[in-house]
């Protein structure tokens, strides 16, 4: 079975002249109906990867290298008009902050109907019906009335449901979810996640779930890709990577989850901070924070495959010590 999305050696740069690489040599593949967890700290390039696929990078950001093969076509070579026809129709996106994603001066109905009609030449009434059904699907009570309400009349969780309903309007093949639960309460988080899971399964939609929360990934994702300073450092199935991490950074992330710690002990953390992308050390970007770094790490390690998984480290971790 060929992959729905195959990203090959993606590189994205910001900065007018200097060319700051926010995403460097990122490759992964995603099959229909699968969920990929794209994990990393703030500034690791995970959101930029998502926006690169959507073709929605803020200027002067641009894809400078690599291919984004979506169902066989390279998105990086498509014109703006072709890309627009794809966005919202076959690839949809849900954003991080539901308080900001809906236009405050337009009703929810207007914003849904226009999304339907952007891709399907249907009448307003039909579009309204489809919008109402979509709202019902994501669990919004009395959807008919809610269509004429403004975003500020919804709570954060409800707004995120609206955003998800909009993303699902055209039954896309791929949804990129950029930390869609980060700004929400824990209880709402769970509801949104299970809602997502259910809907993705029903319509065989592939999902890239961008997050820094390993707990969500372990619940939701089939595969995981860990990013650090713009590069992938470890990829593989969730069981393999979270159960038995190879890269010291992945292990550090797992150990930092509070439930992995014992009561009374100080919380474990990865020492130091993510380096700024314009001040990366030569060689392995993580070596300044890594306990196992040696002189060999002054050269950039390649992604080394081990069965279906891969990691970028000369000194892979053997087993997690529980």
């Amino acid at each position, binding site marked *: 079975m060929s992959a729905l999305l195959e990203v090959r050696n993606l590189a994205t740069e910001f900065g007018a002249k200097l060319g700051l690489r926010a995403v460097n040599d990122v490759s992964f593949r995603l099959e229909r109906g699968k969920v990929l967890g794209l994990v990393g700290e703030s500034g690791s390039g995970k959101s930029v990867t998502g926006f690169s696929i959507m073709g929605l990078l803020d200027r002067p950001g641009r894809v400078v290298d690599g291919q984004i093969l979506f169902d066989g076509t390279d998105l990086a070579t498509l014109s703006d008009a072709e890309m627009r026809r794809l966005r919202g129709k076959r690839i949809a996106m849900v954003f991080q902050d539901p308080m900001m994603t809906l236009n*405050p001066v*337009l009703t929810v109905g207007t914003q849904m109907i226009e999304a339907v009609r*952007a891709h399907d030449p249907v009448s307003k009434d039909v579009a309204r019906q489809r919008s109402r059904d979509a709202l019902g699907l994501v669990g919004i009570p009395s959807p008919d009335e809610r269509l004429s309400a403004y975003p500020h009349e919804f709570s954060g969780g409800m707004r995120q449901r609206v955003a998800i309903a909009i993303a699902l309007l055209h039954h896309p093949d791929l949804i990129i979810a950029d930390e869609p639960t980060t700004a929400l309460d824990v209880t709402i988080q769970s509801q949104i996640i299970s809602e997502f899971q259910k809907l993705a399964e029903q319509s065989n939609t592939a999902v890239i779930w961008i997050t820094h929360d390993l707990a969500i990934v372990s619940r939701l994702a089939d595969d995981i890709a860990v990013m650090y300073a713009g590069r992938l450092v470890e990829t593989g199935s969730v069981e393999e990577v979270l159960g038995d991490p190879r890269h010291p950074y992945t292990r550090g992330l797992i150990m930092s989850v509070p439930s992995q710690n014992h009561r009374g002990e100080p919380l474990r953390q990865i020492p130091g901070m993510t380096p700024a992308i314009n001040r990366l050390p030569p060689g392995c970007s993580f070596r300044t924070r890594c306990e196992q770094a040696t002189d060999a790490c002054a050269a950039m390690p390649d992604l080394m495959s081990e069965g279906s998984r891969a990691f970028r480290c000369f000194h892979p971790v053997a087993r997690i010590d529980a």
Partner: protein
Amino acid sequence: MAISLIRRLIQALFVILAMTVIVFIGVSVIGNPVDILINPDANQAERLRVIAHYGLDQPLWKQYLLFLQGLTHGDFGDSFVYGRPALGLILERLPATLELAISALLIAIVIGLPLGLYAGLYPNRLSSRIIMSGSILGFSLPTFWVGLMLIMVFSVELRWLPTNGRGVTAEFLGAQWSFLTKDGLVHLLLPAFNLALFKTSLILRLTRAGVQEVLPQDYIKFARAKGLPERRIIFVHVLKNLMIPLVTIIGLEFGSLIAFSVVTESIFAWPGMGKLIIDSINLLDRPVIVAYLMMMVLLFVTLNFLIDVCYTLLDPRVRLDARA
């Protein structure tokens, strides 16, 4: 909604009442109209007769109460100079000023809004930079100088447009209007453009700043993620958010266009209220000055009220009720 409307109306009445006091006292201290009105050769008996005729022999508070009493039936007193009701004099001139101000505002919106939108959407293009530099000129060149230059170029050198006056007018709703005849329109063009110049730059810069503020918002990115055509993003998503600050400014600026069109009206000999008030100030024609100032107070109070109503229509997050 109804309760807050009534509350605002009562507030407005108090503002107007307070203004009558300020205006009345202010006008009383700037000079004695008797010195200008009365022929210096007149004898003492004649002087006293005139003073008594205008009620100027009464103490100030009594004059004020008499003035208030007049106000209750729309009487601002007779002009010292023309000997006719002051309000009538002003209302007679109102259409001229009104059509000048409205034309100027329309020109400012029609030119300023699209150019500002363009400069905001494509800030790095050369044409945008030229537009923005041009708007600085519009801001900083003095109105009277631009007016004189316009007359020199278009009237004196090119002989395309007339230099002054309203031209042929036509009657509509019981008033004389220039914009209804071709000749009147030709006369209106230069003064309207002159008055519009500053406002055009203002609207242009405001629009551009608004676009640049709205464009990086998440909801614009989300609109793109929905695959909406760029046209709809700009003209619905961006523009509707822009309208909120723009309506405030346009409303207030319309008031100032009417109130401060004095310079343009003087240069183009446009027989509007601005010219009347300048003449009246020179002659210390108290009733006309007071009536004019009261009209302006009323105008601004009304405009502010209308702006508030527009707000609630444009911005669903604002409700009049929510304001204390």
